[in-house]
């Protein structure tokens, strides 16, 4: 008797796992979770990259001092350095050499030999090692107080472009993620519809013994949730491995791909992705099961 009781101690699942295409469904969900994981990691990485680039640009600036004559050039430069260094404590403020200034013109003028007496503007490079972002207006005003006519370029034009591109990439990745989730809902709904049809006999018996719609729907919710969880875990693991592999290849090597740098905090988002995938599969199954059971009842 004890043996018999022990044998029957574990309840068997009421829905048959063999009667529908469980394996095919898990494979489809795995592929979707794989794509979703890549889209998510790409979105996070693109956002990080954008912030890094914008941060770097925001912490550097180039001050261009307009030189009226060769005689006043050196004095103006020294005055400008005296104004800038105390105004930006901790920042690296250095004058670019004439050679460096000339090399900056190469993209526009090519390899032309420039005459020595060409009045090139003096260029001062500023690099902030952290902290506040450089304010071009403030620096221009400070220099103006000492009679220096200068133009401060904080690379905001580039920064804005990078920001727009980065946000665009992130939005595209998130849209892709949303589409994958939408497809996940549809797949789970269709699968539940097929499962309800395949398990018609089981449902008929459950209804006969007095099972409520909620009880029956919960069976499908649980089944879809387990399948969603299984597919999501496998897909996310494969996606993460692929992203890690891509992150090892530098942007310079791949030419087209940006650096896909991964961060440990990404794992938190991946856990949410798995939970989200499981949740939408369960919800889609629940809604479909309730809807079909209600329709069956009306038909009966």
């Amino acid at each position, binding site marked *: 008797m004890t043996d*018999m009781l022990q*044998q*029957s101690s574990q309840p*068997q699942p009421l829905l*048959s796992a063999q009667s529908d295409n469980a394996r095919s469904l898990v494979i489809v969900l795995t592929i979707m979770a794989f794509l979703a994981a890549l889209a998510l990691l790409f979105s996070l990485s693109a956002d990080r990259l954008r912030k890094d680039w914008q941060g770097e640009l925001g912490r550097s600036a180039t001050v261009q001092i307009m030189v009226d004559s060769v005689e006043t050039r050196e004095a103006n430069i020294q005055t400008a350095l005296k104004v800038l260094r105390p105004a930006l404590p901790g920042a690296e403020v250095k004058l670019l050499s004439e050679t460096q200034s000339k090399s900056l013109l190469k993209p526009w003028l090519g390899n032309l030999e420039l005459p020595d007496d060409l009045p090139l503007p003096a260029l001062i490079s500023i690099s902030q090692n952290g902290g506040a972002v450089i304010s071009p207006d403030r620096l221009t005003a400070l220099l103006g107080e000492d009679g220096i006519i200068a133009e401060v370029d904080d690379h905001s034009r580039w920064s804005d472009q990078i920001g727009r591109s980065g946000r665009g990439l992130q939005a595209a990745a998130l849209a892709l993620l949303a589409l994958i989730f939408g497809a996940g809902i549809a797949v789970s709904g269709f699968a539940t519809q097929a499962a309800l049809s395949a398990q018609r006999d089981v449902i008929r018996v459950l209804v*006969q*013994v007095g*099972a409520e*719609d909620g*009880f029956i729907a919960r069976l499908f919710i649980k089944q879809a949730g387990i399948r969603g969880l299984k597919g999501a875990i496998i897909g996310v693991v494969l996606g993460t491995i692929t992203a890690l592999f891509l992150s090892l290849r530098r942007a310079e090597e791949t030419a087209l791909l940006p650096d896909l740098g991964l961060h440990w905090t990404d794992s938190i988002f991946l856990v949410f992705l798995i939970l989200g995938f499981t949740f939408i599969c369960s919800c889609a199954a629940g809604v479909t099961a309730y809807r079909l059971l209600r329709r069956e009842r009306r038909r009966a």
Partner: protein
Amino acid sequence: MDAVRFERVGLRYGRGPEILSDVNMRLRRGSFTFLTGPSGAGKSTLLKLCYLTLKQSRGLINLFESDISVMSRAEEQATKRKIGVVLQDFRLIDHLSVFENVALPLRVTGENRANYTQDVVELLQWVGLGHRMDAMPQTLSGGEQQRAAIARAVIAKPDLLIADEPTGNVDPAIGRRLLRLFSEMNRMGTTVLIATHDVVLIREMQADILRIENGQLLSGLDAGAAI
């Protein structure tokens, strides 16, 4: 108090002729009734109306003093949980063991497994399936499947037990044993309605007899005389 009451009940499929016509029937709570009649007379259809698988086209059906035509889905399912049904095709779930099939009515109510395990085992032993409780239905003989179906119908101690040819696939000894089970349940208050052709079974029990012919219900002495 009536467990089942039919008043001028008619049933037709679509626009076809009436399968059941003007059926009036009362089963008192705690009664034991046999339903007889030739094949195709409408016995199974009448039982389906009793266990809420079919809805009448006209007339009134009351189960446990409640009009089934105004029941909500939840009330309907709650009423079904008071009814144990044994069908000719058994309807055991293939991927569940005999134990799980029998425990099903208790499981759907959310009953704690530990509370009913002992009851299921004892009932399976009573119907002679103690040694087959972990077997799958496909591996059972017809008689064993029938006994499992009967055990499932009675495990939740229903207020109304409906059986369609419950002894059709079992040998006489097992048949008598099952009849004793039904009788015992009836003694404890369950209303029993059994559709059968088995005259021996009917004669062994001092029970009410209903006879159905061509969708019309005869009862009492008329029915007895017909047998």
